[in-house]
């Protein structure tokens, strides 16, 4: 199948009104807020070196924070703020999605606007400012008639830079729950759907270019006092906003929101659940690519209605427990604990997606390694790779405590690349996931854990507090409980990691449902 006849282009195009609309909305809101704050600050501090220095230093520091981290930081910050406003004023707001993304992006847009604004205003010939005063202008008139128009080209260059940055960085707002063109990129990266990745990159680049050109047209018009050109630019921006907002406004926002974390299994399961709800006549959408800590808070706050988590994850991250219990006992205890927050643990899906230390079968046999205990003797000559959170998780501490494991080197990797890396010998051992289809594909083995250092990770279905008594929802999901075993999930994950039309989460979800229904 050629690249251009690939049906995934069509699928990607289908998401465009939703993704692009949300992307434009959050970018423009952020830019507008950023300008509303930065431009007056630039004007106020133009003749005051001390506050100007502090302001520029602050904006520069913000700029050095990686975009993803800045976006991620705003989520807990707003959660805190929301709990404060709830306690003091009895009103709360959603710390999920739009608001944190917009605030972080607005902060991100400040540096170029501030710096160019101040540079532009300070770069004006002092003789002209004196001339403005001399012909009888007030300070305000001097600013409006002389200084701002003369600084305009430099200021607009800053605004254009900010616009391009914001539109590009907005793709990173997906993990905090803001739908954006980043949904293509995150989903594509996780499910190895390069068509999606490419589509997302192209769409955001084109959007950035279009906005930059339109702003350029406005600037050109203002500079040459051409109402036609600045008018056309403004109409262009307005048309872009209207075109991207109209399709999303008509859609009802009511209905169930199915959450998914940022890996292929989650995309497949959320698509499966969405299909089940729709089959039961309930309207449902999937909100994919949410960060691991964001998603639980989003459920608790009711921003999403349901998702699949893993018992061991919640055990460690939400209950802060370090002890380990057998599978059934742990789920039962978790259920009681979550019920206190009104979160319903509907049940287990049937498989476990636990962390496991994974090696190529041949290598393990050659070294005589079957269990993690066997591994500890060889660890000092071997290297290990894990996902971004593994080495800071309690499981890793527990493994080290139980087995020692002084590895020669530790690396963090994108989960999808870990398996290929260990298969090719790039690293010796990885902390993989038991349900991953690539374990079979690359002929890898999971090492036994005789001292039970790693807690169980049963896939469990969680419902938001507001859905606690929703019997239609529960009935629609009932057929999934206990029906997905490790073999079938591994195969589904393997299919999802393929790179063809049948590997999209939607297609794999349909395949998975066929397997479940057959039983």
């Amino acid at each position: 199948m050629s690249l251009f006849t690939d049906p995934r282009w069509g699928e990607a195009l289908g998401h465009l009104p939703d993704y692009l609309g949300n992307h434009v909305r959050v970018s423009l809101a952020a830019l507008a807020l950023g300008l509303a704050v930065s431009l007056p600050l630039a004007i106020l501090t133009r003749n005051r070196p001390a506050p100007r220095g502090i302001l520029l230093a602050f904006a520069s520091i913000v700029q050095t924070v990686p975009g993803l981290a800045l976006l991620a930081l705003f989520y807990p910050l707003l959660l805190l703020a929301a709990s404060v406003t709830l306690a003091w004023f009895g009103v709360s707001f959603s710390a999920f999605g739009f608001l944190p993304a917009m605030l972080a992006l607005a902060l991100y847009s400040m540096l170029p606007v501030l710096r160019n604004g101040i540079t532009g205003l300070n770069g004006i010939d002092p003789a002209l400012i004196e001339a403005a005063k001399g012909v009888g202008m007030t300070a305000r008139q001097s600013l409006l008639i002389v200084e701002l128009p003369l600084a305009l080209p430099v200021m607009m260059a800053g605004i254009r830079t900010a616009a391009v940055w914001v539109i590009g960085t907005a793709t990173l707002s997906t993990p905090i729950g803001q739908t954006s063109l980043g949904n293509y990129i995150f989903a594509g990266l996780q499910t190895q759907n390069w068509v999606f990745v490419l589509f997302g990159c192209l769409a955001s680049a084109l959007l950035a270019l279009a906005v930059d050109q339109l702003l350029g047209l406005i600037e050109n018009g203002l500079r040459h006092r051409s109402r036609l050109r600045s008018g056309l630019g403004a109409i262009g921006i307005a048309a872009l906003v209207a075109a991207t907002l109209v399709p999303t406004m008509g859609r009802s926002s009511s209905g169930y929101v199915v959450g998914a974390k940022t890996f292929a299994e989650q995309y497949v399961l959320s698509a499966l659940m969405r299909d089940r709800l729709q089959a039961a006549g309930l309207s449902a959408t999937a909100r994919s690519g949410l960060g691991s800590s964001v998603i639980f808070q989003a459920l608790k706050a009711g921003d999403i209605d349901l998702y699949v988590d893993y018992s061991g994850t919640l055990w460690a991250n939400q209950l802060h427990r370090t002890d380990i219990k057998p599978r059934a006992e742990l789920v039962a205890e978790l259920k009681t604990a979550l019920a206190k927050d009104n979160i319903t643990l509907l049940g287990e899906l049937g498989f476990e997606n636990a962390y496991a230390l994974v090696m190529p079968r041949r290598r393990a046999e050659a070294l005589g390694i079957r269990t993690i205990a066997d591994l500890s003797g060889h660890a000092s000559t071997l290297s290990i790779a894990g996902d971004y959170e593994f080495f800071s998780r309690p499981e890793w501490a527990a493994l080290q405590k139980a087995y020692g494991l002084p590895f020669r080197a530790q690396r963090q990797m994108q989960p999808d690349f870990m398996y290929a890396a260990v298969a090719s010998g790039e690293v010796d051992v990885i902390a993989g996931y038991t349900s991953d289809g690539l374990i079979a594909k690359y002929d890898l083995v999971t090492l036994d854990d005789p001292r039970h250092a790693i807690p169980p990770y049963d896939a469990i279905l969680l419902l938001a507090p507001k859905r606690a008594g929703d019997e239609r929802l529960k009935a629609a999901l009932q057929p999934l409980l206990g029906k997905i075993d490790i073999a079938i999930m591994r195969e589904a994950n393997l299919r999802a990691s393929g790179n063809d039309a049948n590997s999209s989460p939607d297609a794999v979800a349909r395949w998975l449902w066929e397997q479940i229904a057959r039983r």
Partner: protein
Amino acid sequence: MPSKLAISYQEVTKRFGFLAAVDDVSLDIAEGEFLAIVGGSGSGKTTLLRLTNRLIEADGGTVMVEGEDVRSVDPVALRRRIGYVFQSGGLFPHLSVADNIGITPKLLGEPAVAIAGRIDELLELVQLDGASHRDRLPEALSGGQRQRVGVARALAAKPRIVLMDEPFGALDPLTRDALGEDYRALHRKLGLTTVMITHDMTEAILLADRIAVMRGGRLLAQGTPAELSSSSDDYVLELLSTPRRQVGRLNALLPQSGAA
């Protein structure tokens, strides 16, 4: 001495840090008079001029404009009724010739039709062709044309007083001469009071009724060229001797029946 004073500086002092840029200067300028203030750089002549319309504020003494202490007048209103010609034109580069000229009447809220008529009148007055110059930006003008626009702008709100800060300093000699003569004619025709800063004594003698000489912030002498030549101050005499010497040498070098 004429009876009414347009401008009167009384024991005026202005310091920048420890430096007294203007040091206890007293000087009267009568209505209708053309006064040139002559001095080298750092003599305080530009500072004195800027004190007149409160572009800067005096530290001591009193500046009176048309009988009023400038401290009691709103500075913005004061500046709008005093014309000011800046050193290198000071034209706003993003505004057309017409918009530059019409700026002060516009600030005063005069109707657009009246301003347009006034702009045509002023362009004619400073001898620029309206049709071809109105809509140009300052960058498209020669140095002399720019300074003519600067003069037109200063006259736009029909001031009775015009302050000029080395207005013709950066021009070539021919343009400078022509512009000086043209302005002198305007001064007379419109009955203006003009204070012009220059470092060129020849220009001062040729254009002004009276000359004030400044050095190191102090006023050394004032009077008509004839009165100045009887001064006892060495610096004043030296300033006056330069044009004389030049005339002597020019007469010796140029044939008497020359074009000029």
